[in-house]
């Protein structure tokens, strides 16, 4: 036996009580883990690359179109490297209520602006060559069971075909992955040529122009230059980083981060009171024993350390269990949500952050009883029945 065992034994003193405390702590950290991961996934399209890419949309609103020739004119602006364009297709496969994240793009320039998109060389060739070819992100492909070579019909909520139908026929040319941004792996990409040839309206129009620059320090100036280029023209533009664009869009749903912070804070406040009071009660029950330990020669500071170690052990074990459970739930939820494009996963940052909070919780809940245990006078402790 050693002092560590003594700490653990004290927790085992009343097993039911320790179990209930663990449950409470588990719940709080489960919520923290799950909600915090969700929060990050929601704001996840802000990675390094998206902070450097620039996006140009119609100044009125990004649902309004831009003429496709704008892309060529943006390319002329000094400092611009690769330029591509995309249009929201509003597609769905069989069920109108389950929309696809589907865009009409220019394949060659798309791959130039999003270099992290990866696909086997022959699939890439096929996509670039085939007018009706479709490049599908791997999570969407898995969700619907699509494989390279499949011929699938996709309809649009927004557009109609010239021949009167609403269903377009596509060949799955490629299945791609994006290690930098797993949200992108939910996308479905069709060729803009096919789009332009077949729609009744919206031809030669695009929703957004996305481009990379040769030096990110110049992004501010380049963005202003692009907007100046189209000022006073039929479609004025506004240009911003992709990260800022995504952030503004996410914010439209509401201050999700604030809501999550408030919920997690209330959960922690509740368990702080519960566990704190229980620790005080538990230590008070041991007054005599603490006195005995001191008569044996254990120092007051040692007693302080033992009690703090107890509350820390309780908090950290409960937290690790809760975070682990959150991880499991996130894994399952992630599979359901990935069709809608999200980066839902438990990261080291969230886990370690949780452990950090657990340490703080352990210290705070243990502080008062540890202090009173340390200050306890032996004579009083032994006399108290």
């Amino acid at each position, binding site marked *: 036996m050693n002092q560590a065992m003594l700490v653990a034994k004290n927790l085992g003193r009343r097993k039911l009580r320790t179990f*209930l*405390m663990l449950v409470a702590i588990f719940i709080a950290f489960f919520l923290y883990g799950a909600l915090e991961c969700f929060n990050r996934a929601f704001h996840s399209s802000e990675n390094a690359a998206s902070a450097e890419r620039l996006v140009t949309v119609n100044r009125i*609103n990004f649902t309004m179109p831009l003429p496709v020739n704008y892309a060529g004119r943006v390319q002329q602006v000094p400092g611009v490297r690769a330029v591509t364009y995309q249009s929201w297709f509003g597609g769905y496969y069989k069920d109108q209520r389950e929309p696809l994240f589907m865009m009409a793009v220019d394949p060659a320039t798309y791959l130039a602006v999003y270099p992290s998109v990866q696909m086997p060389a022959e699939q890439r060739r096929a996509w670039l060559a085939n007018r009706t070819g479709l490049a599908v992100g791997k999570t969407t492909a898995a969700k619907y069971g699509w494989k390279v070579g499949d011929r699938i019909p996709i309809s649009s909520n927004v557009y109609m075909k010239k021949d009167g139908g609403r269903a377009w026929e596509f060949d799955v040319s490629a299945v791609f992955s994006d290690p930098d941004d797993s949200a992108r792996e939910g996308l479905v990409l069709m060729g803009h040529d096919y789009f332009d040839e077949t729609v009744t309206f919206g031809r030669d129009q695009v929703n957004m122009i996305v481009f990379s620059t040769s030096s990110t320090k110049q992004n501010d100036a380049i963005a202003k230059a692009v907007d100046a280029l189209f000022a006073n023209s*039929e479609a004025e533009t506004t240009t911003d980083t992709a990260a800022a664009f995504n952030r503004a869009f996410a*914010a439209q749903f*509401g201050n999700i981060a604030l809501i999550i912070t408030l919920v997690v804070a209330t959960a922690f406040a509740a*368990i702080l*009171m519960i566990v704190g009071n229980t620790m005080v009660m538990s230590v008070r029950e041991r007054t005599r024993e603490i006195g005995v330990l001191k008569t044996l020669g254990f120092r007051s500071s040692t007693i302080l350390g033992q009690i703090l170690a107890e509350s820390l052990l309780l908090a950290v074990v409960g937290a690790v269990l809760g975070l682990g459970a959150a991880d499991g739930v996130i894994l399952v939820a992630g599979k359901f949500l990935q069709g809608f494009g999200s980066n839902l996963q438990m990261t080291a940052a969230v886990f370690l952050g949780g452990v950090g909070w657990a340490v703080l919780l352990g210290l705070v809940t243990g502080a008062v009883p540890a202090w009173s245990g340390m200050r306890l006078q032996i004579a009083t402790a032994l006399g108290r029945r």
Partner: protein
Amino acid sequence: MGRILRQIAAIASMNIRSIPQRLWMSLSTVVAIALVVAVLLAFLAMGNGFRQAQSSAGAADIAIMLRDGAQTEINSAVTREQADIVEEAPGIARQNGRPLVSAELYVIVDGVSRSSHLRANLPLRGLPLAGVALRHNVRIAEGRLFQTGTNEIVVGRSVTREFEGFDLGKTLRLGQSVWTIVGVFEDGGTVRESELWGDVGVVQSVFKRSNFFQTIRVRLASASALPALKAYVDGDPRLKLAVESEAEYFSEQARQSSDLIQKLGWPLAIIMAIGALAGALNTMYSSVASRGTEIATLRAIGFGRIPTFVGTLAEALTLAVIGGVVGILAATLLFQGYSASTLSSNFTQVVFTFKVTPALCGSALVLALIVGVIGGIFPAFRAARQPIVGMLGEQ
């Protein structure tokens, strides 16, 4: 029977009056339950407010027509030709001899949220004056209505309240043209107040959508005229339109969004309730333990097991009810009437207020009571089954 009730009353009141002896433990349970109730009520109020903003807008005697298969206005497309054909349909109310038919356009423009200072999608609805007339409860609160053929717009009360730059008299630059805000309208806080309205012809030309609309709204002669109108539309192959009353349309939109919030709020509240339950069980077990001698003495005197059981349960329920009430009060004080906005299925912002109702408070209180019951039952069993011998004179 009377004797048992008297015993129960006696023990229950003793238990409850002994709560202050375990003040901090009991308080922590009350606080935990209050927090769970407050969080649940906040979510429910949010869902309720969002739903109400949308569903209360719909009238039973206004029919809305979208392209067949379109779920929302933004995805719909209707031609001038179709609108003309609809004007001939039966069941439409008339004003000054003209049928009250409004072919409308729905485009999205940027606003800036006052709270987040970030861009937000706002709907600009192009509609004829008939369209304003057929919306019952709308009234111009400030300024005046726009004039046909001009770049004038009126904005809903929620728009000017939640977004920057839409005050009366301000101008708005959309594309190449400048628009002036000449009026603010109110509509009882419904989703309509989150819109900007302008003359349909002008909006069409600025946004290059001539002869192109998204919806047709029609004031029915009476709510019962809807089937006749539907039959007419279904019977004409040129009209591939879906017809429903505005009430149905909005309530479907509302149901979808409030469903989502409910699906988030309840599981969250239940998970938190499990944590509160752990705290409640802990408090009650320690209460039973600390009153061990007292319980044994009562039993030795002759009080039965059932009163002991009920007494402990009463203590737990008291804590739960107090926690529930505190949570309800807190949520009401903090959230009632709080204004927020979020993205609707039309891809635009809908402004709504949190709405706490007695029914919602009731649901939240039920959750608190369930925690109280479960948190009390097991300790109550232990109290009732506690042996008398060995507990007397001990401690």
